[in-house]
């Protein structure tokens, strides 16, 4: 069992360092188990310039996910993916960048807060992002995460009033996930009007890196949002390519385009 740590987590240290060195962050999302070679996808994406990777743990009822991520989750569950299996696979692999598990609270709750935190840590996962866990309900997990040395990424939304934004960023670790628009995950033609505003509002309360996600589909959008934000989370656009069978190389090519657009 790891010791409880009060210090900065590994992912946050790493992302702050990159940000402070003037780089923009690329955080791709891959659904664990969605294709047999998903570990290779993580490795390829890391090599292509990802600064961290969100690893989706599939859940039967993914409230905030759009059709593409839902389909990936369904595919993964159809391949009998389990929490245990995913974490075991990650434990046995060398990815090369910090990993943040993205999943829904029931998988955490059902496993048990401490057991879940410990499992993440043992598998080398740095952080967790649990979108249906608001700060009001955060305490039990936050305590276990702190105990287990796992960082907790939190989201701020365009609808969050400033007081909530402040309360959220004060508890966030690793980076702040700024939701670009009201709505679910999925590709969008244009950046929402809210995207830049929410980043600016988050910035007022924290010097954590701020990555924008939900609907970032193209390197151009990423570049645009990174005039204000520190980085982007890229989900559906990448996952769709994997669903289309593009494999590790295709994923790497796609992430490389973001890396290129945002500079080294």
């Amino acid at each position, binding site marked *: 069992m790891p010791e409880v740590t009060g210090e900065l987590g590994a992912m946050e240290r790493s992302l702050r360092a990159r940000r402070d060195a003037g780089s923009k962050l690329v955080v791709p999302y891959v659904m664990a188990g969605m294709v047999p070679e998903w570990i290779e996808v993580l490795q390829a994406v890391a090599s292509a310039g990802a600064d961290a990777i969100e690893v989706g743990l599939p*859940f*039967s*009822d*993914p*409230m*905030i*996910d*759009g*059709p593409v991520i*839902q389909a990936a989750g*369904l595919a993964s*569950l159809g391949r009998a993916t*389990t*929490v*245990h299996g995913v974490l075991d696979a990650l434990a046995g692999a060398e990815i090369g960048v910090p990993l943040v598990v993205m999943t*829904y*609270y*029931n*998988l*955490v*709750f*059902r*496993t048990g807060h401490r057991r879940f935190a410990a499992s993440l840590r043992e598998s080398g996962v740095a952080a967790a992002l649990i*979108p*249906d*866990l*608001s700060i*009001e*309900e955060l305490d039990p997990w936050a305590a276990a995460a702190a105990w287990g040395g796992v960082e907790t990424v*939190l*989201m*701020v*939304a*365009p*609808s*969050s*009033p400033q007081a*909530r934004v402040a309360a*959220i960023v004060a508890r966030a670790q690793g980076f702040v996930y700024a*939701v670009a628009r*009201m*709505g*679910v995950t999925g590709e969008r033609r244009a950046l929402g009007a809210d995207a830049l505003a929410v980043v600016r509002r988050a910035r007022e309360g924290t010097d954590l890196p701020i990555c924008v996600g939900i609907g970032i589909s193209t390197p151009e959008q990423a570049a645009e949002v990174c005039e204000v934000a520190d980085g982007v989370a890229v989900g559906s656009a990448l996952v769709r390519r994997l669903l289309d069978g593009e494999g590790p190389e295709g994923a790497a090519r796609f992430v490389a385009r973001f890396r290129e657009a945002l500079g080294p």
Partner: protein
Amino acid sequence: MGDPGPTGRFGDFGGRYVPESLMPACLELEVAFREAWADPEFHRHFESILATYGGRPTPVTECHRLSDRLGIRLLLKREDLAHTGSHKLNNVIGQALLTERMGKPRMIAETGAGQHGVASATAAALFGLECTVFMGEVDTQRQALNVFRMELLGAEVRTVTSGSRTLKDAVNEALREWVATVEDTHYCLGSVMGPHPFPYMVREFQRIVGTEARAQCEALLGGAPDVVVACVGGGSNAIGTFSGFVDTGARLVGVEAAGGAAATNGVPGVVHGMKSRLLQDEDGQILEALSISAGLDSPGIGPEHAHLGAIGRAEYRSATDEEVLGAFSALAETEGIIPALEPAHGLAWIIAEAGRDIPAGSSVLLTLSGRGDKDVAQVRELLAGGR
């Protein structure tokens, strides 16, 4: 049954497990509901619509012939006589009033078999609100007539093709739509489920069932019945009924479908924004409930039921499809009332336990949450298949 406070807790259950995008909407809704519910004018308006439009109070009917057969005294709270044919109307009128009060021009709703969808479309038509109803693709095919009904009422029915393409996924999709449109849209959730304040608010809107029934039992029996029974899908008709009797000595019994008995077979978990008892696997993946009654096919129960069960104030039982079909026919034959399959679950338990777990001579109130017209075609096929 009290106020679950600002965090919406019923003991260990309830809460608000939604994406940050929705948290402000939930908080806003709670404020709006609390203000409205403290306003006598809102109550007056709510009750007046339920009376002059919805047909309230619904009567309590004494079942003479079936009582004789069972050796108990059986009373039915007749929600089947409410406009649109079930208790669902109470909730949608309350939420439509609230939608208007919040100045939102649009309501969305989820539906399984279509009852709550039809009720929502009805309330939206009455108030001149836009309405979109989310319904799993499997259900839109099974219940094409209800789709047409909602369209007649001016609602848009959106087919949900994600997940199992049934109720559970319709809830997810409605929540997703709410995230995207929360500015001008209220989510009119159909049971005592979901994030706070829904379980509290829907209970309060359904409380009228129990309040009326309590007074009616007082007049008929001179007090509360020995046993109060209601079916439990999400649990709104049951909680509404129980709320009238929780402070009496009456046994409170919720009856689920054996194929979807979240109160009995479920374990604590979080889905659709609430912590409650859920049907789920070892990993925490939510399982689908499966019975002959679409309205009870919910993988979870309302958090207050989980709490009432935990503290022992209410008991939860279940009935099999076969028992339910027997109860359905028995009520039709002996009393001329064709019940919805949902409350037929409650009756099935009563029939099975009269003279056993329900001592002979007991007075028993069952909330007949809806009428069976919607189920007649299905029962016809089931009985034909069984022959």
